[in-house]
């Protein structure tokens, strides 16, 4: 197999912690679907992308992109709008032809059977008019050789309340759940989700994250594009950061943060807190009401503050986020 920059250690990363609602929902949900075999025991990479390029005239939408995805993980493509995420994912899905490059699924070039093995949720999709949710599911189930039972899928994606409603009259969150159900209808090995929570309200986004976590818990491999930092941080085991059609860096969120932003930020109210900031180790940035101490060791900074008998009641520690990382790597905000 090809060698790529992702460490095998990140494969065993513990799934991200969930809020109370999520845990409760995940535990109460029935598990009607058979667990997939542990593919990670039998292969290194499920999908490999090798020197992929897509040029539109002089525009390089995807410029020499390579990565590999191990089975059973959630793999993220993170980047701002126009970074090349969707083009990359659509080339992998077979929707768009690449200018050059190679894609291997289970070590071989994709063939017609790939459509039977993958599930796809596009960024924006309309469905046939005047069909109910159940009829849309039935329609798509007929496209595949081994579809899941419609009722089980309705339970899994929580479509029961509106299964007899016209699909094109659903709310944003309901429609995304239906589109997710369509992506899962063939019980795929790998699921592509292209910015699935864009435009959803916070509650619907969180609900959708629960569903994605549940899919992953059933052994599916997920390829997720997003420009939401919190989403990538919460869901992705490994990710590539893209900008201007190129991969800037790749690895697990933790690896990337440790590599590029090893410092933590300790914030404490100032002045009038009774300590001398010049005695602290690390860069100190003075704000209007508080000091920000950029340190490699939070413990050491705390010890220094306690030694000066500083009032720690206003103290808080801010860990760097993927957004900080992205700004550092690209020099601009992710939403730009």
């Amino acid at each position, binding site marked *: 197999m090809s060698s790529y920059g992702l460490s095998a250690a990140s494969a065993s990363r513990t799934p991200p912690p969930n809020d109370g609602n999520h845990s409760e929902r995940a535990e109460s949900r029935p598990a009607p679907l058979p667990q997939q075999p542990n593919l990670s025991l039998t292969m290194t990479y499920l999908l490999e992308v090798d020197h992929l390029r897509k040029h539109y005239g002089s525009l390089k939408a995807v410029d020499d992109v390579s990565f590999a995805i191990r089975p059973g993980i959630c793999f993220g493509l993170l980047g701002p709008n126009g970074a090349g995420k969707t083009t990359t994912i659509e080339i992998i*899905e*077979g*929707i768009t032809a690449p200018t050059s490059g190679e894609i291997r699924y289970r070590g071989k070039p994709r063939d*017609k059977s790939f*459509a*039977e093995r993958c599930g*796809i949720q*596009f960024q*924006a*999709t*309309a*469905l*046939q*008019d*005047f*069909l109910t949710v159940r*009829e849309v599911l*039935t*329609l*798509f189930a*007929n*496209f*595949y*050789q081994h579809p899941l039972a419609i009722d089980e899928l309705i339970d899994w994606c929580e479509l029961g309340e509106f299964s007899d409603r016209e699909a094109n009259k659903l709310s944003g969150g309901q429609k995304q759940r239906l589109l997710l159900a*369509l992506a899962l209808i063939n019980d795929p090995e790998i699921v592509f989700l292209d910015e699935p929570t864009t435009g959803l309200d916070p509650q619907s986004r969180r609900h959708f994250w629960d569903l994605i976590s549940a899919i992953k818990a059933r052994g599916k491999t997920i390829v997720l594009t997003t420009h939401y930092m919190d989403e990538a941080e919460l869901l992705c085991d490994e990710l590539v950061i893209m900008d201007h059609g190129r991969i800037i860096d790749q690895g697990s969120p933790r690896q990337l943060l440790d590599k590029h932003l090893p410092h933590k930020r300790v914030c404490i109210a100032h002045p009038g807190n009774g300590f001398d900031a010049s005695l602290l180790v690390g860069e100190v940035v003075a704000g209007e009401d508080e000091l920000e101490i950029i340190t490699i060791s939070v413990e050491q900074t705390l010890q220094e503050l306690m030694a000066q008998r500083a009032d720690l009641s206003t103290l808080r520690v801010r860990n760097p986020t993927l957004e900080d990382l992205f700004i550092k790597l690209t020099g601009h905000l992710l939403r730009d």
Partner: protein
Amino acid sequence: MKQFLAILVARNKEYYRDKGSVAWAFLFPLLVIVACALAFSNPDTSVFRVGLHGDFSTGPASALLDQPYIKTVSFDRLDKALERTQHHQLDLLLSSDGGNRYWINTESSASAAVEQLLLGTTADFVRQEISGRKIRYVDWVIPGVLGMNLMFGALFGVGYVIVRYRHNGVLKRLQATPVTALQFLSAQMVSRLLIVVAVNGLIFAGCALFLDLIVLGNYINLLLITLAGALAMIALGLLIASRTANEELAGGLLNVTTWPMLFMSEVWFSLDDAPAWMQSLSNLMPLTHIVKAFRAVMIEGASLVDVSHHLLWLALMTATSLGLAALLFRWHKK
């Protein structure tokens, strides 16, 4: 086959649940027919139509033919002119072929009147008789209306749907499944074929019931012409919709395709008196062959062999349009 049937069923559900479209599909042609029936129930009898087979610019009949109440129509073929006389579309027919002769329809009072005018002018013509039921304008126009409905139903029904599917991403979503372009397109064709045939059948039945239509030919032949015509139009619709995702552009293309056919395919009026180039252009249009074949079977009682050249042309157009549509077809907009 499973995929094909699933798309077919879904498309049919989409169609019949769209009540506005269904209502329009039935109401529009019926309104046209009723309007025609009312408008032409009292035809203008102040002008006599005289068919000319041969040169009559000089000679004993020219004095009559120059009268303002006489309208002349020239024919190259005598059989065509006789057919018109038989159906009361000509009141008198003059022919110089094999000596001066004239024909009148013994069942037409207009024929009797214009015969007296002729005999008052000259006695050089030998009398010939022909008889036949009067073909009303509504009898003549309904094959055209059926063809027109078939054209609009097929072209817009397939063309707009596919362009809309491409524009809003339905086609892209289907491309991501194992469904092939052939399965998708053939399901669209069959669905629209069923709809168009059903709608045309109902309109035909309604007309036959309320307007006492003349149908001299075989109903099976009419069904075959409907199928051949619908396929040709659907294939043309697929060709027009093969690439674009712009509904306005598609609307423009469909209108540019349908309106010339509407006026040049003898839906509303005959092109017998039209310039030769217009008749040649008309003969390239599928609607012309549909309407002429319908009319031949309904009014003249033509057999399948009689209209086979029309059916062959429609089959050729179907194959050509389908081939090009398959070549040009694109699932999603760029």
